[in-house]
């Protein structure tokens, strides 16, 4: 069942030089209980897309068009008062940087309690009990004492767990996790991902996992959407996209992961060139400038390949793909 349906989402920011379009006609869906990974480089528009879905961008400088429906309710033209009910209760956000995501002057207990009481009418004692439960769920030691701590007394990993606890406090149907592990050490990363996985089982929420790390996607996601320069360039079930990627950008991303087996690479592969600056109006495919398989026709807008679960925004059809994709390891 589709929980979140985003169609032709377009986000522009007002600037001195006129409106800058950062997200172009992005579409994706999230079903109940599934994890959608959204992967792309910094600036690809992944965070902006989700923030605009939640209505968290500054309305004075941002224009959002398209259709976004959550449980068959259109979100984009919802008045803020109604949107507030959905935020935190039905859709929760876990921000990228745990060091700055919590208000420094309130205890974490107060901040968790605040969210619960904003959506539910619960007694103070019950809220506190629930907060302790939540902290226990995210495996924070000594949860009763932790409630009265301030954010600066906790490490980054701990703070991220608190953020997760807060996000899950009202049992949301959908959790948007914006690069939840980027700001953490690798060991802590693994712990947090484990946690997310376990919690998804126990709470049954869907997750939109934003990341730039293909490894995280492989580990956590059911489906994946690859974004580049504000567009979804490939999407599909994780197994399909990883085993048989269609878009040259996805090839590049996968090739950047050092392989566990095979000959040792002399030099780590990275995709040459830079993504286009946001707002640059490109006649055709945004990736054409860096694509090793670019053809003259790529100067015109690329069509969508595939019509099932697996789709890509590219001119290469099945036949051309097989020839164009470099053999595994050959890019090193």
């Amino acid at each position, binding site marked *: 069942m589709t929980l979140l349906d985003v169609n032709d989402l377009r986000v522009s920011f007002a600037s001195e030089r006129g409106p800058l379009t950062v997200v172009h006609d992005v579409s994706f869906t999230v079903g109940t209980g599934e994890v959608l990974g959204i992967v792309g480089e910094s600036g690809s528009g992944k965070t902006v897309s989700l923030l605009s879905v*939640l209505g*968290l961008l500054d309305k*004075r400088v941002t224009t959002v068009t398209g259709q976004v429906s959550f449980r068959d309710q259109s979100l984009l033209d919802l008045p*803020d008062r109604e949107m*507030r*009910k*959905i*935020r*935190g*209760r039905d859709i*929760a*956000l876990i*921000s990228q*940087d745990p060091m*700055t*995501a*919590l*208000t*420094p*002057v*309130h205890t974490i207990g107060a901040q968790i309690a*605040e*969210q619960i009481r*904003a*959506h539910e009418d619960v007694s103070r004692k019950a809220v506190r009990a629930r907060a302790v439960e939540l902290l226990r769920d995210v495996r924070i030691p000594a949860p009763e004492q932790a409630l009265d701590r*301030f954010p*600066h007394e906790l490490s980054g990993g701990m703070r991220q767990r608190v*953020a997760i606890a*807060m996000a899950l406090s009202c049992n949301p149907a959908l959790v948007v996790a914006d690069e939840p592990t980027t700001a953490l050490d690798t060991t802590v990363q693994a712990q947090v991902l484990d946690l997310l996985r376990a919690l998804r089982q126990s709470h049954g929420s869907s997750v939109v996992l934003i990341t730039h790390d293909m490894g995280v996607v492989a580990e956590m996601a059911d489906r994946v959407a690859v974004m580049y320069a504000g567009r979804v360039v490939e999407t599909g079930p994780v197994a399909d996209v990883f085993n048989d990627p269609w878009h040259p950008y996805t090839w590049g991303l996968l090739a950047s992961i050092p392989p566990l087996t095979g000959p040792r690479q002399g030099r780590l592969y990275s995709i040459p060139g830079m993504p286009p600056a946001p707002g640059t109006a490109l006649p055709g495919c945004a990736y054409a400038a860096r694509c090793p398989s670019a053809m003259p026709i790529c100067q015109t807008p690329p069509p969508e390949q595939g019509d099932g679960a697996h789709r890509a925004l590219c001119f290469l059809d099945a036949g051309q793909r097989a020839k164009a994709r470099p053999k595994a390891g050959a890019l090193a």
Partner: protein
Amino acid sequence: MLATVLARLAQMIFVMFGISVLVFLIFFATPGSDPAARIAGRNAAPETVEQIRREFGFDRSLPVQYAVMMKRLFVTRDLTSFVNRGQKVIPQVLDAVPATLSLVAGAAVLWVIGSLFVGVVAAAMRDTVVDRGLMILSLIGISMPVFWLGEVMNLLSQSRFHDTWLFSWVPGLGYVPLSESVGGWFKALVIPWITLAVLYIGIYGRILRANLIEAYSEDYIRTARAKGLSPTRIMLRHALRTSLLPFVTMFGLDFGALVGGAALLTEVVFGLNGVGRLTFHALQNLDLPVILATVIYASFFVVAANAVVDMLYAVIDPRVRK
């Protein structure tokens, strides 16, 4: 926590010492004329000048002179004025304190409430007419010399509109002690309070607005919004609460400027018998002992107040508490 308090107190003592040395150097060690003659005032008899020279130890070394000055200011408190023969200065200063404190405290309360209001409203209604209007008013408030504003207020409330309902309740210029009449005390101070507060509401309203707007671009505000909290709650409990911190520090700094300058001028304009007015009369009469006493006592008060504010900071900002 105790360590921080002690450290701050030590710093306060050090600064007070530094200020006392500086005042001493200015009053007693400035080249260009005889300090004894300066203290004696105009048209002093040579015997008086000689007497001063002995009493203040001008025939001894500088450190001794400093010690004598400090002793006469704080220990024996027998510093006397030579312009008003024999008038003991320190009791005079201490008598003037209630008026100054009343003025300063009331103005500070108004200042805090006023700037909170201006800052929050302007930030919440950012870029609207209300915001721009408040900011322009604040700018004008900052640009008016406080003593001139006081004169204008006097012109309106004592003269031009005194007979209208607006200002008929305003008593004549002067301070009414609290012990004498609460109502009178209050009525005599309302206009001076407003005059004094206007300048600082202007400054702090603008700063608070800027701080709030900056706070709004912080991550934790985004988290708060994502939690589904109401805009009022976000503004007051998250943005304002964190923006108060620099507000408090600066309050401490400006309190000094208030007491040392603006309050002084306000007392003069409104005829309030506070330390400021005392200083003003002494300036006109070139009565140096009085000025010496008021400057030191006022400075010490300001430094102490600053230290208190700093220590209060630890209460407000949990990050500082370790």
